[in-house]
């Protein structure tokens, strides 16, 4: 009985682990960077993103400074990795839109602020926290979400999101 019980616990733990790795992933990130207009600056961001092992490919629209980052499967990246790397290149994030599975945002560190949870295969979410939107946008958002218990705490470990599709 005891052995069976332990086996179940192990199985349960493994299931959770696998579920966590397969569900927490981000498939794609669309980053709009701010504060730059030169292709050498864009290239700095490009090289910084490509240095990440989890990155499969980076496509750049130089005219809008938008970087579409395709990520490898089963990665466990958090939105903060994009912020850190854009800032390392010397710039900032103006908007970050992620393509994720519905399960990903159903739990921590994501907090749904706007839009409804959907059961589509892939959903688009925008991260609304400070450092993931322009300063002007953030000021507006903090007024709109002043009733949120967590949004204005600026806790860097959680991510407030809006479902776009």
């Amino acid at each position: 009985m005891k052995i069976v019980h332990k086996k179940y616990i192990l199985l349960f733990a493994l299931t959770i682990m696998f579920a966590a790795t397969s569900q927490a992933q981000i498939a794609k990130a669309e980053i709009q960077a701010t504060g730059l207009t030169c292709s050498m600056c864009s290239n700095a961001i490009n090289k910084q993103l490509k240095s990440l092992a989890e990155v499969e490919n980076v496509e750049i629209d130089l005219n809008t400074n938008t970087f579409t980052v395709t990520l490898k499967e089963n990665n466990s990246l958090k939105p903060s990795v994009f912020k850190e790397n854009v800032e390392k290149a010397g710039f900032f994030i103006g908007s970050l839109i992620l393509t994720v599975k519905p399960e990903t945002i159903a739990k921590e560190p994501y907090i749904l602020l706007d839009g409804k949870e959907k059961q589509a295969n892939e959903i688009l979410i925008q991260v609304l926290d400070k450092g993931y939107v322009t300063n002007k946008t953030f000021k507006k958002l903090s007024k709109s979400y002043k009733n949120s218990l967590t949004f204005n705490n600026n806790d860097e470990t959680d991510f407030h999101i809006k479902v776009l599709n």
Partner: protein
Amino acid sequence: MKKYLLLFTVLICQKSIGQELFLLTDPASNVPANSLAVNILQSAFEREMTSGYMYGIMPEVTYGLNRNLMFRASAFVSNRNNEMVAEGGNFLAKYRFYSQDDLNSHFRLAAFGRYSFNNAPIHQEQIEIMGQNSGFETGIVATKLIKKLAISSTISFEKAFDNTPNNSFPDNFGNNATNYTLSFGKLMYPKKYTSLKQTNINLMVEFIGQTINENGKSYLDVIPVVQFIFNSQARLDLAYRREIMSSMVRSAPNGVYLNLYYTFFNVVK
């Protein structure tokens, strides 16, 4: 001449797509973290007191430690005394302490300090720790990018020491100065980006001035620059430096620059 320079400045300011990778006046932005940039700045300046040209070679290495802090080391080689000899070096640290970025625009502030050593004889009242004097310089840079037009300005304090080991700074010269710069930059080509491989052409104009604090002697120079960027990684700058006004003794104020620049990204894995 002055008319053309004015026209050049107006031209750059009107069309509002800008760059801030200036040749002589560093912007408030730094090189990317964990990148290493190497460049060789060559110059040929017409001698005022004797005939001929003074050639200079300045190799530089720039490293971005993190997003806010960068370091640079420079060496000075010139034929001031007829043979090409290494005369000194400079260390620079620049810290970006304020950034207000928006889509296609930013306002940034940085503080910098540099220290130089030099062994050359001192022939001029102008204080120039980038190649002529031992000494230090410390100051603040503000760079604004408005709708893609880059404007950058610096104010700094510069002090000269005796040149090591036995060329002392003349007693009758003022040994400290206030420096000021104002720079404008514009992207001429391409009008629309298609890829990172595209060659970019930038036009810039930089103004550099100095006032010796003790006696008020001053100069003001203008430096128009044409810049080519290849493969979003390499740079070639061609520039001409011209004295607009001066009330001090300078050994070689007018000349040309050629700068080659290359960036290595993600140097430490």
